[in-house]
């Protein structure tokens, strides 16, 4: 309280007369008056409306096609084969056909989709070792306890990459073929690079650094995850730099989805050559699927999604509609408030008692 410095006598203990202590700080006391609230509502409604319309128009320009191949057509055979765990080593290839009525213009993105696959279970999400995947050697040989029970194999060899997430990697592969009107088949070229977050590819996933050793040597003393067919350093036979922990497919898979139904990027249409320079032309397509990933255990479904993008991403009808609905609701509220205010409003003044 009173700092007894220069003050003396009867006022020695008088509290300071500062605006703060006397609670008289200059302040702004806003109030919800009709002058501010009603225009605000109309303004909000207008903004939402404009945004909604704009988004709707944007979304209209995108195209998307989803092909569920879980047991579509000949994939049914593969589906049955995968039902039995003992056939895991057996390869199964099936083909699904579909057609596009309007050409997909611009960049086309190829996704695989999974339904009812819970990447968001707590223990599933925890079951990984980021330190191992960032290339820490001690974690390579001795993965985090969180990876249990996918930490070591029966022989006690550490698993790289460890954990349930890596273990359950989606291992179907796709070849998309365009069948033009003349019946000629064109393999649709897909870019399988650049499908990850920049930070994931360049920061979060690193191979252990050992000079003068091949990747295989680096990973010596570890074993591949239980369900994998190839070790991590041989994931991409075509491209040496796409192996180990920095494999794009692995990185994509390791970015866990928030919901049980999700899609993940598989590839991007490579538009350098005809007839794909402008995107995907209309016509018939077929996808050759190396059907490996079993979904029947958990009643899951698998899809292939092809879509074009705009500035705010893929086809997403919810956002524009939500904006339009919100806009109309705000408008409705605004009108009601205006009516109430005009008819019954006390406006503060006549409430003085």
């Amino acid at each position: 309280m009173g700092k007894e410095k220069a003050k003396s006598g009867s006022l020695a203990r008088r509290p300071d007369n500062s605006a703060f202590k006397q609670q008289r700080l200059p302040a702004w006391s806003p109030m919800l008056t009709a002058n501010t609230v009603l225009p605000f509502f109309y303004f909000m409604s207008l903004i939402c409306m404009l945004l909604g319309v704009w988004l709707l128009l944007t979304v209209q320009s995108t195209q998307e096609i989803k092909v569920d191949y879980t047991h579509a057509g000949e994939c049914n055979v593969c589906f049955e084969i995968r039902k039995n765990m003992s056939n895991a080593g057996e390869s199964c290839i099936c083909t699904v056909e579909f057609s596009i009525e309007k050409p997909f213009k611009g960049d086309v993105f190829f996704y695989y989709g999974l339904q009812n696959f819970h990447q968001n279970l707590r223990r599933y999400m925890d079951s990984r070792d980021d330190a191992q995947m960032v290339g820490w050697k001690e974690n390579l040989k001795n993965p985090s306890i969180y990876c249990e029970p996918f930490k070591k194999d029966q022989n006690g060899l550490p698993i790289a990459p460890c954990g349930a997430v890596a273990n359950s990697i989606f291992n179907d592969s796709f070849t998309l073929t365009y069948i033009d009107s003349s019946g000629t088949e064109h393999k649709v070229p897909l870019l399988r690079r650049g499908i990850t977050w920049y930070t994931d590819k360049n920061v979060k996933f690193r191979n252990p650094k050992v000079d003068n050793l091949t990747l295989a040597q680096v990973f010596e003393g570890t074993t591949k995850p239980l369900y994998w067919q190839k070790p991590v350093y041989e994931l991409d036979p075509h491209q040496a730099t796409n192996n180990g922990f920095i494999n794009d497919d692995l990185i994509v898979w390791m970015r866990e989805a928030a919901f049980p139904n999700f899609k993940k990027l598989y590839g991007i249409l490579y538009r350098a050559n005809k007839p794909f320079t402008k995107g995907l032309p209309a016509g018939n397509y077929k996808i050759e699927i190396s059907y490996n990933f079993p979904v029947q255990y958990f009643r899951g479904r698998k899809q292939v999604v092809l879509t074009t993008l705009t500035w705010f991403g893929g086809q997403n009808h919810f956002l524009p509609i939500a904006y339009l609905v919100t806009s109309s609701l705000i408008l409705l509220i605004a009108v009601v408030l205006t009516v109430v205010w005009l008819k019954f409003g006390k406006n503060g003044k006549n409430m003085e008692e």
Partner: protein
Amino acid sequence: MTHFVSHVSAEEERRVRANDREYNEKFQYASNCIMTSKYNIITFLPVNLFEQFQEVANTYFLFLLILQLIPQISSLSWFTTIVPLALVLSITAVKDATDDYFRHKSDNQVNNRQSQVLIRGSLQNEKWMNVRVGDIIKLENNQFVAADLLLLSSSEPHGLCYIETAELDGETNMKVRQSVSVTSELGDPNNLASFDGEVVCEPPNNKLDRFCGTLYWRDKKYTLTNQNMLLRGCVLRNTEACYGLVIFAGPDTKLMQNSGRTKFKRTSIDRLMNTLVLWIFGFLVCMGVILAVGNAVWEREVGSLFQSYLPWDPPVDNFLFSAFLSFWSYVIILNTVVPISLYVSVEVIRLGHSYFINWDQQMFCSQCNTAAEARTTTLNEELGQVEYIFSDKTGTLTQNIMSFNKCSINGQTYGEVTDPLGPQPKRLDFTPFNPLADPDFCFYDDTLLESVKVGDLHTHEFFRLLSLCHTVMSEEKSEGELVYKAQSPDEGALVTAARNFGFVFRSRTPGTITTIEMGRPVTYTLLAILDFNNIRKRMSVIVRNPEGKIRLYCKGADTVLLERLHPCNHELMNITSDHLNEYAADGLRTLALAYRDLSEDEWEAWSASHRCADKATDCREDRLAAAYEQIEQDMMLLGATAIEDKLQEGVPETIAVLSLANIKIWVLTGDKQETAVNIGYSCKMLTDDMTEVFIISGHTVQSVRQELRSEHVSVLDDVWIEFALIINGHSLAHALEADMETEFVSTACACKAVICCRVTPLQKAQVVELIKKHKKAVTLAIGDGANDVSMIKSAHIGVGISGQEGIQAVLASDYSFSQFRFLQRLLLVHGRWSYLRMCRFLCYFFYKNFAFTMVHFWFGFFCGFSAQTVYDQYFITLYNIVYTSLPVLAMGIFDQDVPDQRSLEYPKLYEPGQLNLLFNKKEFFICIAQGIYTSVVLFFVPYAVLSDATQSNGVPLADYQTFAVTTATALVIVVSVQITLDTGFWTVINHVFVWGSLGSYFTIMFALHSQTLFRIFPNQFHFVGSAQSTLLQPVVWLTIALATAICIVPVLAFRFLKLDLKPQLSDTVRYTQLVRQKKRKPVGRSGRLGARGGSRRSGYAFAHQEGFGELITSGKNMRLSSLALATFASRHSSSWIDTLRRKKHTHAHTPPKHCKTCKICFPFLSLICCLTYFTSTPHFLFLHHIDVFYYNGLVELHLNARSQCFFLLFASQAFFGLPKAQIMLMYL
């Protein structure tokens, strides 16, 4: 104190043998070392932690922490709980440690006091803590008694000694203790050293007024009572030395036995909060159960199929066990609905409010240099909910200063201030006329002085009466410097008035009164004093003047005096009656004055009958009264006086404002009915508009019941008429009995004003308890004296006036200040704001935590009920302590709906608090609903948008980290927007905190998602790059904007509608303030504050006790001692302190304005200074000192007959320096 408990169970009686340590040691009595501290350095940590974990909240969080350490359950990292918990625990520990440090210091100080102990025949200095039971110690004057002693002998005759018990029971008058006659002869140390008596007595207890034991010595038994005991905490006064035998030491002493813990007060918001927190726990368990059931179903239906990808944890073998674990996991996740920061924030806010009270300049009294002080920091918001105020009268409503205001002499009234609107009348200067005049005396009417100067006989006789007919004693320190010691301030005022008008009472002996009349010394022979008592309501003196004429002077209540006048006074009586009515209407205390000439024969005859009555053994009182009655007849009226019992500044206004705020004020006073009613009128509690003022003064149960019934009926008959109730102490005792309680409460509460007079301190507390019990209303007790302590402690809020009656009330109080009028600011401004802020804070707090936590609940349905959190664990840790804590704290501390002047102008603004409108169960549910709504929006909008959206480079946005960042950002933005809506008073601090919190959120998020941290701790910061990747996406911002709009628009619409259709008074005031800031027009306040009352009341407003009459005439007086001043420091200490101050002023020219308490310059100055010193230290220190110095029980202020007698005896001895021989005579 735990020590003591074990003792009691063991000890059935206490045996103490004097001077025999070996014998006494067998019993292992407690030593005289006291320990009020709780810890030492080693025990501090374990004991303090143990104590802290006795708090439910802390244990709960500890429990959560343990849960989090179980890997199968842990759904959150341990640090999400341990960081806030450690913060809270360490803050509390530091506070406790400081607290205990001061306790250690004070214990040491007390334990190391020196006392003289008789060891092996010689007196040796020993520390207090080394004194043992059975020791004989010597006490000297003004020393504190070290332990509970049996008084053995004293330097005074008859083994008498005098003690002051202020520390023990708050009474500042002296009490007499006497040793058993056999031991009182033991005199010197040599005899005492051979004393080997044995005391057998009751075990230690806390009854201050009772002791029973027996002394066995030389084969004889002597009964011991409380009269033989000197209790620890007392101070020896006016006794050179005395010896005592230690009976109870240290923790066994009555003082320590009484230092129970002060009751911990909780506010109603606290209680509500606790209930709500329990409900929330219930809710939490429900959610946990729902999610666990969900988990069971999911694990059975889906999870079991998913096992090839994610097998169950080893201990889990079926879905039920999984569900069980998931329940606890969800308890951990969802615990943030009641975050630990709630309790901390509430404490911080209250602390802030307390500081604002301490800092308030408008509650600073410059006269006494005291600022208001919030001595507890836990009750602030309750100040905004007070419905009943129980006020003491003397010293609280009044200043306890009487001033001679008006008089009527021979039909002529004086003292009227002619024109209230005219220039300030000049104060009369008496010094040129009368060198002996009291310079502090104020009077404005110079016609009276003129009348004295011209020698008007009536006027002279009037003042002569005033200078003779009283029991005041005078002390003349130096020539012409008179100090009057009056039993009641009324008498003092009258004698002082006479002194200034030239009739100076100078000194008295048992047989004479010496005055200076108009500069000429006159000595009257005092023949008799017909003392005052409550039935007679008058007093008379019979004096013989130097000429030999005998005259009886009488002053008394007009009701009794006017009917004893000579018939010839009829005309004068009418005029005087009119004057008396006028005075009474002004709320003044009136007395009528009369005289009667007596012839020598009349005197002789009456004197004989008086002597006869005096000597009578049976019905002496009645006989004396009859004798007095006999001579107080046929008197000649002189006039009347009117004394103003000066109200404190602003009392009527304050009462008016408070009652406009719908607060009921009850006055509880020890004063008599007339005085109380008088004050009731002068402070406008009672007005003539009141249809009826009920007076209940029945002495029996039946009569009280009857009186109550009849009133109850009339109260019920007409609700629109205002009633007032005045009830007497003895009637109150009946009314408080169980069967009449409800009746009394309903009647009393229907009355606009209630005055309880002649109530004991215990009854004060009972009345408060009664209202607490029956009305469920918040009560506030305000008082200044020791007799108010019980009431202050039992009310929800106790306010102490740091005035003139010492410091006891302040020590027991929760708030203290020096003027009654500050109460309106405390309640209407600080209390109201505190309540408002606390309510807004709680509403928002519950809202924000539900909005935050419930998102996990919704997510549970999508993540297989696996207790996966939606947010990053760092966000969960920091959300409550960093991202959202400061804006709501700023609102809780600084918010104002209307400025302080408005809350005083519109007392109605106080009502929402009383009706508990701003935060109750309904409001709580609204907040919760809003929180849940927000959580739904915050979960499902991002879900719907993101589950299908992709970045502009085609990478899907539906990954967990993007979703987490989006939801968290949306949440922080929505709650920030909400706080901007809730904040009504945007100071710089609010701006800084709101914008700062948002800024800190983004800064911290980017830091936590940075590459640097990830490189160091890859497993801890796996959100690397998420912030950047997410927040660069326009879709994310569109989502956040949409979610914010959907959350806020309905709130805004509801708020607007409420404001528009059902505006609260505060909204209206705020609106008018906003719209018409320039031309303010106060409304809502009634024009003039009440009309002046005009009922006829009579008040012989002397003190409650009889005067010194008998003592003066009997000549049982003693030596004059400046120390003896202390005896008068009872209820009428104010005038005494004033004179003292005056004296000091003229002596030393010290500045007059200074802390009054510091001016009390007798030895317990040290005590008071010490306590005053402590007032500047933090409040928690006090709690301890209340413990030590104050006793929990109830103080009975009224002296019982016996101690009163001793009191008078002692007083007169002190003032009239008569030789000791005379005292001996008196005793014989």
